[in-house]
């Protein structure tokens, strides 16, 4: 639930909005300036301040702040884009600072820190993905497949370990996908074990004759 604004801040925001509508920019600026100092986490305050800001640089910074506080603030997002475009027309330089799931923070050549919306679904980078609870079982499976290629005897031991791991995992509360994976692990480990029997037999015959 959004935090309730102090009465004083609400009043200031109302004043600023009305002043903007009446094109009293100086009054609007003063009200929004005060609102941002009293409630620096209020996106609307920053947005209203951007509407009456005396310079394009300050407008950009305020929009950027408003957007970072509320990435769903569509008006702020739209105007931020236009403001960034204006800045880039003057100086097409942006240096990377950091990024989150929804925005980039960049530094312009003039030293402004600007937040830029990403406008895309967040997809977790491959290397940051959680290996998941099935990882050890997969490890055993890879080993048993390797052992199968190296004469099969190792697979006779490793495939049942894979199957045991898979069975153990079934007792955990897993996602539907992981449950299917566990079954697949189980089936492949059984197939590997069955394939390993004749192959290891062929190897063992050679060892013991």
């Amino acid at each position, binding site marked *: 639930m959004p935090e309730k604004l102090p009465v004083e801040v609400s009043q200031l925001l109302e004043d600023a909005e009305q002043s903007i509508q009446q094109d009293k920019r100086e009054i609007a600026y003063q009200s929004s300036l005060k609102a941002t100092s009293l409630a620096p986490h209020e996106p609307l305050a920053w947005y209203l301040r951007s509407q009456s800001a005396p310079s394009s640089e300050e407008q950009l910074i305020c929009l950027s702040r408003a957007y970072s506080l509320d990435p769903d603030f569509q008006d702020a997002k*739209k105007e931020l*884009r236009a403001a*960034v*475009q204006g800045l*880039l027309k003057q100086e*097409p*330089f*942006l*240096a*990377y600072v950091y990024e989150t799931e929804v925005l*980039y923070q960049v530094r312009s050549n003039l030293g402004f820190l600007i937040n*830029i*919306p*990403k*406008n*895309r*679904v*967040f*997809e977790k*980078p*491959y*290397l940051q993905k959680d290996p998941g609870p099935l990882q050890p079982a997969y490890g055993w499976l890879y080993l048993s497949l390797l052992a199968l*290629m*190296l*004469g*099969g005897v190792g697979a006779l031991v490793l495939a049942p370990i894979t199957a045991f791991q898979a069975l153990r995992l079934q007792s955990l509360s897993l996602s539907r*996908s992981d449950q*299917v*994976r566990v079954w*697949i692990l189980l089936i492949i480990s059984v197939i590997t074990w069955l394939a390993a029997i*004749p*192959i290891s037999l*062929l*190897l063992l*015959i*050679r*060892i013991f*004759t």
Partner: protein
Amino acid sequence: MLTRLLYLSAIWFALSLLVTLAVGSRLRRGDFTLSMIWLAAIIFIGDIFALFTFGKFLEIFGLSWLAFAFGLFWIIRLHNWNAAGQVTWTMTLLTTGLFIIYTFMLTAFSPLNPISFIFALIFFFLEVITLLLALAHMHESLDVICRLQWQRLLYILDPVPDYEPMVSLHVPAYNEPVEIVERTLDSLARLNYPNYEVLVMDNNTPLEETWRPLEEMCRRLGPRFHCLHLDKWPGYKSGALNFAVTQTDPRAEIIGIIDADYEVDPDFLKELAPAFANSQVAFVQTPQDYSYTKKGIFSESTYRGYKYFFEVSMPSRNERNAIIFAGTMGLIRKSVLEEIGGWDEWCITEDAEASLRILKRGYQSLYIHRSFGSGLMPFDFEGLKKQRFRWCFGGIQLLKKHWEALMPWAHWVDPANKLTLAQRYYYLVGGLGWFSDVFNLLFALFLVLGAIFSVFSSPIQIRPLTNTILIIPAVFLLLHILRFLWVLRNRLKISLGMAIATMYNFFSLGWAVTLACIQGLIQQEGVFLRTPKSKTASRVWHAIHVTQWETTIGLICMLAGLLAFTTNPDGRTFSLCALLFWQGSLYVAAPVFSLLSLGGEAAITPRITDQGKPVLEQRAARWVVVISMLLIAAFSLLKILPSPAELPEYARFLPIDISIQQLLNQSESQSTDLPTATITVTSANCRSKPRGGAEKVTVFYNGQQLEILGKNADLNNPWWYVKIPDSSENCWLWGMTATTTGNLEEIPIIE
């Protein structure tokens, strides 16, 4: 029986493929009856040959019916192909299947010591994977040349009235020569389309004087053009392209990627934008064409090599909605790009990776088989090598990230995965195909070690070197080379000489691909190949220096083959020498092409993106050296362990070998040749009675020839009664340890 069936199938395969190579591209009519007649004809011709030479009626009859039924299945299934393609595919599958069974039987039941058996097993698995990849190549070749009807291939799109969606063209640039980018931007300014913008995204170019002129250029070209320099930006090209999406005009519905060295045709957008009128189409790709400033074999074969993918692989993939988005000269729907989360900044072939994620969501892709622009090729072999390394590395990354989505059970694991079976097949084969070069190197290594041990008169016994194991792989190799040249000639419309040059151009990059495969598997993040730097200013020396590994491997192969043959000249070492010369030639092609690429300085030299951290070739190659050392050590160990002293019981299941004389003309051999046995194993015990446990009389060695005086009655487990050379005594030799020549029918059965 198995050996005879394999030979019969191989005859069908060779026959059908040779006819396809001759007329397959000209046969434009498809008819079920015609296909059936052609299938029956191929089977009949093969049967007649087999009946008069090595075959047995009942076996021929049985396999022929099986082949016919199998052929009918494929004729029905591949109704879009001509008869030549359908029958060739049937016979390729049948022969490959039989050969796999044959090699398994040979591996499983040869009298080997345990280490030899493990090697034989590894070799068998490698062989199976290689054969399956060869099958995939065969399918692709036949699919594009023997196809009668294309369902999805388009050269031009119908215009859609009043549909001109806004397109945002993204031009990523890093440290690009200004004159190259200028030509690209000028061509974009001339586009015959009303509704587009161009974003030039320069990322991380260190010198301001390199990127500032781009800003000036954009100002000069008007309000459609926007320039942005991104400093200290992560994610390389993908990182910059992802940021470009945030700066794209909100009205834009389509995004196009244009490499900074591409000159684009004015009709590019006008012709392609209508594809997006269908809301299911997520991306469109056109061929990436190249203009080359230098003439010569290197440039032309490289150019043809690039074309191969867009002339062969893409049309085939397009029929199954399985193309890849190749980046430049392609368009992608912006909303879909946002839906999938943008370009992957981890994968260095972010374009191909994105296309897989798009197809996973069930969208459509489209390949327009018409070139709309041309870029610049790497001007020397070093550049080509680095580029191929990058592509392969990206392919392996894609496989690492998405392997599960390509498995048969992918739908059950992730119901949102809408990849079809064909899409999964093409992406899987596309990724695994890179490993062909790794297997090729391993085979070369096995052959070199075989030659070295042969020189020291102690040949390695991995599995018996039967006639079949010498003949059938040679037939496979030859036919697949012919098939490759046929595809190159037919699809690229080039002479035989240029087709051979293009083929060698492909193979000459095998070393770079091998390194990329290994690095792709072991490295967490993207890397690029750093070739060794030469200390002299000589360009010739540098050209040789950057291919030092390929030269070394190639020369080792050739020298080993030559040594093996000159030390012990016989049929077996001749085959080994020929195979090693072929393998060596694939690697020696690298320095040859490197030297050929020196023919004059290019007017403008394009840059090959070095994305990720550098990996020195010397370091990357250490893995190969280590694997080679391990193999040598294991092979030495193999020599320490003795081969089985007695003939083991299990050896009775070994497939019986057929001599070359029998294979070619049984009647001739019956009338002229003396029955002779030639030892094919390292050493073979000769016994007092025709059974494994009987008393050992003497030992024969590989290559020894013995006169056959008689045989046992058991046809399934033959023993030959042979004369011991320089002695008046005779003994029994087990049939599996030798190949035979001459008339075996008339020799007496000795009880």
